[in-house]
């Protein structure tokens, strides 16, 4: 397991070579570790990778990044994925009640639900009819772990903001404008409050948000907001809320 951890992931061949035992013995041990949920594997032969099992929180974050980065062009069939706004809307309509039940905090439930609605609907508003590949929103919610992940594979904030603010020349600048200035990505329409509203909700409810677009990250921890380059480049947007 230390070997897998040191490499983040490892193929069966690498593990066998490292341990130095025969393949059947190594595979037996790998199976045992999988049954104990200490490791998990992805892919199909000949491309199989073993990973250390992560806590659910990290796993969800990994899932959303995987979905965002996946080269697959097919429409996914997971329950977290909403191809159209009405599907997202139907799922979102249940969120406030579920949050209220789980947290017992009506203010948090209603405000957080509104913020999630703004982020999810933004994806549809700014990419409708113009999705680069897979349309829709990925939204995974774990009320026990208190985490909500949203993602789209749209054009991203820089593309949208750059159309109305041509002087903005990178992802970080675009995110800064989107979270701090009232400017609509859809010219001739009176819009542009969505992410400012999200920021206010995160601050007032003392939550945490990480919002990625392109190679930029906006991290909000209660009232503190920070814009920086992220380690990963994402398509469209990814939002991770911890509450």
């Amino acid at each position, binding site marked *: 397991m230390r070997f897998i951890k040191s490499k983040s992931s490892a193929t069966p061949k690498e593990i066998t070579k490292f341990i130095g035992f025969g393949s059947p013995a190594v595979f037996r041990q790998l199976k045992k570790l999988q049954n104990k949920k200490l490791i998990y594997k992805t892919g199909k032969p000949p491309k199989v990778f073993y990973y250390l099992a992560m806590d659910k929180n990290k796993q969800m974050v990994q899932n959303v990044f995987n979905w965002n980065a996946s080269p697959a062009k097919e429409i996914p069939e997971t329950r977290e994925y909403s191809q159209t*706004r009405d599907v997202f*809307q139907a799922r*979102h*309509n249940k*969120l*406030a*009640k579920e949050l209220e039940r789980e947290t017992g905090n*009506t*203010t948090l439930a*209603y*405000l957080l*639900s*509104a913020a999630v*609605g*703004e982020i999810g*609907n933004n994806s*549809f*508003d700014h990419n409708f009819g113009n999705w680069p590949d897979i349309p829709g929103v990925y939204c995974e919610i774990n009320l026990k772990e208190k985490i909500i992940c949203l993602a789209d594979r749209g054009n991203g904030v820089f593309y949208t903001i750059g159309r109305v603010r041509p002087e903005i020349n990178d992802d970080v600048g675009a995110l800064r404008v989107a979270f701090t200035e*009232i400017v609509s990505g859809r010219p001739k329409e*009176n*819009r542009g*409050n*969505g992410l*400012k*509203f999200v920021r*206010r*909700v995160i601050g*007032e409810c003392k939550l945490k948000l990480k919002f990625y677009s392109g190679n930029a990250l906006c991290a909000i921890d209660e009232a503190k907001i920070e814009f920086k380059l992220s380690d990963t480049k994402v398509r469209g947007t990814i939002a991770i809320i911890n509450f």
Partner: protein
Amino acid sequence: MKLELKRFGATLSSRPAAKEAWLSTQAYILSDKKPNEKIEVDFNGVEVLTPSWADEFISSLKKQYPNQVILLPSNNASVKMSLEFVSK
């Protein structure tokens, strides 16, 4: 006249939904409005309101009926915050 927003659902979040609500309100509710009659917008029963929905619906209502729209007070945090954003 009183305009109860809960008729459109407890979660009011997207712009297209607000547009639809606005068209329906004009056709079926505001058609009975007397000239100079005030419109009281009632948020009772609304759990989630976003600035997008509020902007699309409330702003259209205020534009169509200047000085005739009264927003009734609400204790709901998302209603209060969204209305604050729209009025900016």
